[in-house]
């Protein structure tokens, strides 16, 4: 069965679509929200959720929370003797949710719709997908969180709605989407956001204030102090939801530290964070060509929108009160379950269609002549502009830069800045071109972005008619052959040429052959190389693959020659 999972920074939740409606699944403790926290005890026992959160306060070295902030990075998080990447930890949480659902429904969970912040970049999405696969789930779809909330909101009564704005401030990320609903078609018109702004930042503002006013003992271990301070400050922040003043105390060894903070003081501390909410909202409005007064509703999602200072800022910004129909903590999981129902073609959702957009601009790096006639490298040439409806396929034409140029290196970027240095590098491909005077070799660069966030890039050299392609999105856990075939078919409908992986396959075949020819040490060596290379291939990182392939080709050539001698 397909389930919907909201994998949040602070809390996660799971839901299933049954009997025409979405239902949240409680965890082993009976809560529908599972804190996104993981602890590994000294004996190797794994704790997830509330127990892990408790353990964090006692032994912060063995537990971790808010790791979603680091997903898609290479940062390793140490838990006792073990070290993890953020995606491994996410996988542990996902596995726990999966077990909860299986226990509640008695059915095996094989596929999931997992939500990600709309403004998550390609790397973060890939890592989330990997996390799902690591947890033994086939990721049917990655769904943008505000889109999920909009689904939950829209499905509630299936009425037509003028454009409304989903304001999603979670523990670690901020997303805005402008959505409109007509005849059961839910159409996302624009999304924007800040993937480094969330409730945790408000807590950190209190922590920073506290550390300024109080001298904490220096003999307490740093991460213990951080964890305790954060928890106490977080408690204070939550108290300020209902009260005008919060008092919390922290005991470190023999000493006791008191914090007293008023709502007004907190508002002043949070001012810089509140102003950061403004730009994404304005941008999404501008992109969807709407005046702020034309919005029919403001839908609040995410635990951090419960803070009175955030509500106050929203009311002030929009000049009206936000909508309370959807539950800020549950809407995303419910929306994910609805999307799961859509993927499974549930009869209750027959008339419903969801169309989403690509929230960021995708393009390549180019060089131009500047006003002094000098070369100006590092400029961004957009191919798919942000807020284009997905799936989408676009082609742009480029020309060679210098006389007798022998190769083109294509750097693929995501971002909004004119200079690629400020954008995110997604991948690189390098290929030879015929040597000609500058500007006479032209290439067609085609970007294909499907609704699962998979970007496919292929390049056709007009001169030779040769087409090269790179599948950008990552698929460490290979889908089953049938699904792969279906995907291939989908993509083949867009593209005229198949992926060019022949070179890699050749090297693999070559190694396999030599493996049979040699024995003992050499055979073992080839086996190790092959294993390594296959691992690299699975990462789908073009540059790494090229490097590994070149190294392997060199090694194999040498071995073959030695063998002949």
């Amino acid at each position, binding site marked *: 069965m397909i389930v919907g999972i909201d994998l949040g920074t602070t809390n996660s939740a799971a839901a299933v679509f049954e009997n025409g409606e979405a239902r949240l699944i409680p965890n082993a403790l009976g809560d529908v929200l599972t804190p996104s926290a993981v602890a590994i005890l000294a004996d190797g026992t794994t704790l997830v959720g509330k127990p892990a959160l408790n353990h964090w306060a006692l032994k912060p070295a063995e537990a971790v929370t808010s790791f979603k902030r680091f997903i898609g990075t290479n940062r390793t998080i140490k838990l006792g003797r073990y070290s993890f990447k953020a995606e491994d930890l996410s996988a542990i949480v996902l596995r726990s949710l999966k077990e909860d659902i299986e226990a509640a429904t008695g059915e095996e969970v094989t596929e999931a719709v997992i939500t990600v912040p709309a403004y998550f970049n390609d790397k973060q999405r890939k890592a989330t997908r990997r996390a799902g696969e690591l947890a033994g789930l086939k990721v049917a779809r990655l769904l943008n969180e505000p889109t999920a909330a909009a689904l939950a909101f829209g499905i509630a009564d299936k009425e037509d709605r003028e454009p409304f704005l989903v304001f999603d401030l979670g523990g670690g990320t901020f997303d805005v989407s402008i959505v409109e609903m*007509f*005849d*059961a*078609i839910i159409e996302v018109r624009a999304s924007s956001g800040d993937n480094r702004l969330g409730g945790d930042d408000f807590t950190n503002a209190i922590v920073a204030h506290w550390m300024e006013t109080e001298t904490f003992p220096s003999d307490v271990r740093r991460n213990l102090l951080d964890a305790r301070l954060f928890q106490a400050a977080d408690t204070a922040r939550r108290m300020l939801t209902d009260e005008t003043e919060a008092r919390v105390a922290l005991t470190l060894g023999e000493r006791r530290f008191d914090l007293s903070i008023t709502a007004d003081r907190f508002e002043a501390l949070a001012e810089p964070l509140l102003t950061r909410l*403004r*730009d994404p*909202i*304005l*941008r999404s*409005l*501008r*992109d969807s060509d709407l*005046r*702020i*007064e034309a919005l029919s509703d403001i839908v609040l999602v995410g635990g951090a929108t419960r803070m009175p200072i955030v509500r106050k*800022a929203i009311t*002030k*910004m*929009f*000049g*009206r009160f936000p909508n309370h129909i959807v539950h800020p903590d549950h809407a995303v999981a419910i929306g994910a379950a609805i999307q799961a129902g859509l993927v499974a073609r549930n009869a209750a959702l027959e*008339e419903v*269609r969801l*169309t989403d957009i690509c929230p960021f*601009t995708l393009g390549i790096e180019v060089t131009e*002549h*500047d*006003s*002094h*006639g*000098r*070369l100006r490298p590092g400029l961004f040439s*957009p191919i798919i*502009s*942000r807020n284009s*409806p997905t*799936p*989408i*396929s676009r082609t742009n034409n480029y020309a060679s830069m210098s006389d007798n140029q022998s190769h083109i290196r294509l750097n693929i970027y995501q971002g*909004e*800045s*004119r*200079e690629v240095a400020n954008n995110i590098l997604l991948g690189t491909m390098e290929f030879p071109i015929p040597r000609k005077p500058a500007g006479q070799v032209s290439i067609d660069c085609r970007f*294909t972005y*499907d*609704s699962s966030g998979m970007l496919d890039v292929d390049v056709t050299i007009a001169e030779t008619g040769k087409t090269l392609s790179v599948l950008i999105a990552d698929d460490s856990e290979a889908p089953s052959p049938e699904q792969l075939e279906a995907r291939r078919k*989908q993509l083949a*409908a*867009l593209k005229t040429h198949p992926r060019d992986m022949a070179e890699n396959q050749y090297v693999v075949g070559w190694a396999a052959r030599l493996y049979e020819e040699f024995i003992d040490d050499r055979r073992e060596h080839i086996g190790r190389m092959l294993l390594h290379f296959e691992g690299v291939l699975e990462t789908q990182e073009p540059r790494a693959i090229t490097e590994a392939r070149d190294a392997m080709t060199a090694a194999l050539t040498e071995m073959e020659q030695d063998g002949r001698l």
Partner: protein
Amino acid sequence: MSAAHWPWTVLDIAPTEDRKTIREAYSRRLKALDHEAETEAYMALRQARDAALSGQFLHPEGEEEDEQAGGEVEAEAPPPMADEPQDKPVFTVEYDESDDRRFQRVVDLFLGEDALAAADAEELDAHLDTLFADERMGDLGHYARIEAWLAQLLAERYPRGVALFPRVAEYFHWADRAHELGVHPAIPWLFNAYEADSVVSQLDAPGHAYHREWVELTSGKPKGPLWVRAIDKTRMANLIATIRRDYPWLEQQHWQQDLVARWEKKTAGTNVKGPNIWVWIALAFVALSALGRLADGDSSRTAANPMALAVEQSAAADRQIAAFIDQRFPQAQADGRSLDTLRAKSPRAYSTLQKAIGTSSMSDEMRTRFLMREITDVYYQIIDRMPYELQVADARFRAATVKKLKDNPRDCARFIGNPAAYWREGNSAAAVSADYQYQMSAVFHDQYVDREWPLAPRTAEISGPLIERLIRRSGVPEDRVRAALHSPDVPQADLCRTIGSLYEILTEIPAKEASKILPAVL
């Protein structure tokens, strides 16, 4: 009703303005296909719906040419003034009469053809104070309206309110968004205009690489036959092409049409390429030697045949050029940029330098000064083209210097006293490449030498926003910042803080820009 045409054929309805009909048709078509698999069909459908909703395709193409032409003209002009919609908008904030008066007053101040008077500028500044301090700025609609209104006023009346630009840009964080794709059209336009202004002032300065070509196109043929011949076709083609591409309105404002037409004819078929620095020095020299004759008041004399002189003086000239290169770049020999390499790599530049040395119409002082300046400019060209690794080294070095200057006032004083010496000492420990050391020492050496020479006021090249930032960062009052950049008669502490802040700012901007600003200030 006319025959069916795109986009109505895709939607399978008759042309209509009724949004509901269009959306229903879209809905029907969308549900009939699997939009996640049939991408091409879905893209076509979306396109058709958006076109239908735009209301521009009610009639088959051809019948609406006039409308389209009108639209294109508008698109090229600067963004129009804020156009309020016809139906009365519902605002979430309330505006009273005093607001209306203020808005009207601001608009009035922006109207007018000549530059903004000091009193008016002050008044506008005061209005900005009130606007920015307004509580209602918390309302997003109000905020966005004020932003768009100011952006359009500034753009529409450019350059009248340009004095306000840095302040407005800072308040609305335009600098971060100027190059973002899809921001309010007036914002990137303003940044371009601002940039273009600085391009013009640079081109107007005699030291600029393209100055001669620029002058040729703006004011016509300057006196002296050599000068005219000194203009390189490639460079001229380059200048015309880049100005047209990046700052097309400059052509209207500054160039003389007949001259442009003539040069276009001459340069037709010329490949547009980057400048060759040696050609450039060579040409510059020929031009300056012509000027030198004029300055000497010896214009009655016919131009000497430089080739005849060159043969006799070749050996002596070689020594002079070599000595000059050594003096200019102490490490040139080690770097392989000696006289021999110059001769081997660019015979043409070499011969021009030879001729220059041999020209008797130039005083020694003038010759030295000219060569110094030219080679300095060459240096900046090299810095501009620094490979990536060097740019990184440069950024690191600047960051390290800032830290040191901020931490230690004594360091700061020494740095101001003699940047070149300071740099050499500080750099001996740092692991930077020989090439980088060589380039940096040349830059500092240049400033040191330039100090002796009378130049135009140096702050003239420091842009308004930069001064603003200097004041903000250093906390030193404006007049003292300016003084700190000019004269030694300011308190040492102010000088230190100003220079420290400047370095801090320099670390943030690309090395390319930094190399231009640095010599202007120090």
